[in-house]
């Protein structure tokens, strides 16, 4: 037996048989990064902040995301919008994505659907400091990947696909207190600051 096996190289042939069998099956590897997988809706990728249709910031600086975050990587500095009494916003917003565990709790906590996760999973950078996302960067991401954000919110049952406009927030969603126009307060045109000129950065 042993001799026959050796003479006819049966083991080699048995191996080749597997190879030949696989040759006629479809590919299952991808030419990443040239080719990419489609990412399902609701995928928990890099975080982004969203705006209302009119470009104003959705975030009201309530710090609930900060409270919900299990890895303590969010920092919200809230304040009254200068010149707009009673309008609350996040003067500063930081999210240390290098510590984020992509659990999505923060998006669940947000009462105004300001936070949504994108399908972006390629976060590697050469400089760690770039992983400390600030408010500008987060809104830029929201701008660039708005469709991802919408899809995320729908997939997780937080939105009906319209991305609730400010007036039409659902029954259990938070609506702003009306501003007392009779007493010298101005009716705010927008929530938060107007959109700054955005330089949307490439995500490497």
């Amino acid at each position, binding site marked *: 037996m042993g001799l026959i096996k050796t003479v006819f190289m049966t083991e080699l042939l048995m191996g080749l048989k597997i190879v030949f069998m696989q040759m006629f099956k479809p590919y299952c590897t991808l030419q990443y990064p040239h080719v990419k997988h489609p990412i399902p809706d609701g995928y928990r990728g890099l975080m982004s902040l969203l705006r209302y249709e009119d470009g104003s910031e959705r975030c009201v600086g309530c710090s609930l995301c900060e409270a919900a975050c299990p890895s303590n990587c969010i920092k919200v500095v809230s304040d009254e919008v200068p010149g707009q009494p009673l309008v*609350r916003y996040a003067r500063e917003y930081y999210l240390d994505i290098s510590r984020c565990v992509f659990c999505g709790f923060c998006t669940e906590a947000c009462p105004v659907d300001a936070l949504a996760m994108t399908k972006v999973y390629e976060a590697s950078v050469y400089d760690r400091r770039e992983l400390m996302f600030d408010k500008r960067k987060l809104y830029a991401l929201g701008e660039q990947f708005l469709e991802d954000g919408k899809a995320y919110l729908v997939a997780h049952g937080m939105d009906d696909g319209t991305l609730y406009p400010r007036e039409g927030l659902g029954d259990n969603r938070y609506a702003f207190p009306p501003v007392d126009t009779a007493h010298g307060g101005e009716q705010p045109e927008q929530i938060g600051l107007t959109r700054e000129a955005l330089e949307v950065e490439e995500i490497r």
Partner: protein
Amino acid sequence: MSTATKVATITVTINGQTTQVPKGTRIIQAAQQLGIEIPTFCYHPRMRPNAACRICTVEVVKPMNKMFMACSTELMDGMEVLTDSERTLKDRQTNLDLLLTQHPLDCPVCDKGGECKLQDYSVKYGSLENPFATQRKDFPEDIRSVALDFNSNRCVLCGACIQICGDIQMVDAIGFSKRGFITVVGAPMGEALDCEFCGQCMDVCPVGAITSRFAKYKYRPWQETTTLTTCTYCGCGCQYDLRTVDGEISRVTPVEGVGPGQGSLCVRGHFGYHFMDDPRRLTRPLVRRGDKLVETTWDEALTEAARGLARAKAGGANRVAGIAGGRMTNEEIYLFSRLVRDVLGSPHLDSSLRYGAINGVTVMQQALGVTGMMNSFDDLRRADSILLVGCDITQEAPICGLAVKEAIKKGEKPVLVADSMKTEIMKLGAARLVYAPGTEVALIKGLVKAVVDEGLIDADVAAKYPRAVEAIRAELSGTYKEIETPTGLSKADIVAVARQFASARRAVILAGPRVTGGLKGKSAMAMLVDLAFLTGALTTPGAGVNAITMENNELGLALLGAAPELLPGGRGWSDATARAQVAEAWNCTLPEHAGDTMMDMFEAMREGQINAALISGTDPVGRTPAGAKVAESLRALDCLVVADLFLTETAKCADVVFPVRSYAEMDGTFTNMEGRVQEIHSAMKAPGKSRPGVEVWSNLARALDHPLEYASAAEVRAEAARLAPQLATLGVPNGASAGVSVPTLEAWLQGGYLQTMNHRYDLPAKLNEASEHNFRLYLGELLYHSGSMSTYNWGLMKINAANELLINPREGRKLGIRDGDRVTVTSQLGSAVVVARADSQVMPGTLFFPRHSVNAEMRNLVQVVVGSQEEGAVPLSCLERVTLARVAASAEAGASA
């Protein structure tokens, strides 16, 4: 305390736990003692039950089965209560569900979110599915007042805010009113709120219906670090929580039941927290280069200061002087005085006590052996009668004022007020004597005379100390005319008040800054001690005589001997044993003679007899009348070293300026007017390279080759407590609530008493009348400002900028002065232009201007009078607060209108 002894105890059972409580205890109190939580909205431990919110209902099963409100129901013997029975929980849930049908969903932007009772209870006791139809309230938030925002949509109508404003603060500034179908809380008639802004309504609000304008949206309770510390604005020394987010201050909150205020705060304590992070704070040491002060390193500044001081010292130790301020901690004061008296060997040590309560403190010390107040605030709350003399207590010491207000509630006008303005307390229904400004001495003499003449002397005192009583009687031989003329009061009024005071059992005298800080302040205070002595108040527990101290650590200055006539421990410089003790503790020889007072120091500086000075924690140029003169003196110095938080007017004259820390950035202790020693703690980031005062004086001592090294502020206090044992215990009043001991009293009556009697009852010369100067301009205290820091607060300045001249409304009309007009005030020393406003508190013939104003021109209208050799061995100097002036609508008035 003593009344509680006879109350019977009853046995009650709550949730199966049986306990014994005094009769009269309410269910909520007993439950809290057992650690059982009952939800409440309107209940407040310091107020009578209001029973408005009904969230506190609990089930009583014995002796009858019924629902009762825990906050207002008194327990009966054998009562059985269930706080978590099905029925209780059901009622609670319904109550919350009903509230939530109207309550807006504001939590994410509401400043109460995270510490809101409605939130907490809804989570704990509410239902997720609200069975009732919602109709959320939608009324505009009222943001018109400078400090408080009212959001009536969030209000649960518990009434606690209205109650605290009416019952404890006694201002009655807010109430409910109907707007359509919603009830709105706020100032009456829909006006913008304009009140004292004590902020207590906000503190008691269980929800976010009243929030602070200054802290709006700046914090979340769970982000905050809380540090229990002591307020630095006045002698009350309230305790509060300083809250910070990432080392930056977010707000101040009171702590229920803690400290002298028991959880109340005034506007300064509550909203005066903006000076610490003011951009004008000094961040680096400064040294003089020509006309300019330039930033430098600590090393260089210390070396330069040491060199300057050593240069002056080489010419003789008494060529150096030190002036301490009442906003330094006890530890800083101790080290500062040791630096001056030991390291520099100079006798010239004085402090802001000099323009504060020095006269009151020294008289009390000599006569009664008490440093500070005899009575605690608790004594005031329980007093049968309180006589306020020259003391606008609600402005000068607002929380002490609350204790007085509590006494008022006992009815029958127990509070007697003698003042030159119609003060808040007078308006609250106290018996009043309104005298002409600056005539306190005559008024007090009148009161003593009335007691003696009308036979109101305490029988015990008359029998035991006839000699002392006779000595007083002999001084009072004059007629009432000499009292009636200057004060403008009638004999009958004075006698009535004296009679009422003498007949009360626990009778307390409070002397304010206009008594102790006036000319002849020492005599005035001594007369008040006589008054207390004659009426028996000195020896009755809970009664007594007290001088109010204004600055937060003024008493610390006295306890640590920061005045030429004092030594650490509050003892007199003339006390040889005390002097030897200090010399031994410091291992030095103390200077032979007592040093100069501040006013004499300024004189000596001008004449070149003092060449170097250290000033810390006070701003004599910027905050005293005639500051320009002081600046002249300081400029004549060879070396002036100033340590402060800001580049004050005094610091601008300096050669070296040290940036020091504020109370929120270091550890230490302060002594309040009752003698409570209370801690402060480092709570926030200190600006730049500033250092705690203790470190600065220690560094300077090292630079002077005489090291004084300590590891911490606590170590300094431990050393200081050896000389001033009062510093050893924290948090308890240090007075003599039980009355002055008989040996002390007798020692005084036999010792210094009769010698100082000479001239005690002489009246001071009249202000020299110049016919065209027909007003008495008087610098007084304002609730919104005190000490030298409050005007650096943008928050307080927004509430009240302390730059208005107040004038009697009728006289204002006569002179054609409307509110907001600019007027020119002229005295013999010059003239100044200010904005005027009519105020009914001001009596005819009087002008009032805030003492702490930044307006130097106005302060310079008032004279500094040096009353030298007036009474006793140490020449005593005083600042006059009253001067004659005239007022006229300014020529610029048209331009500004």
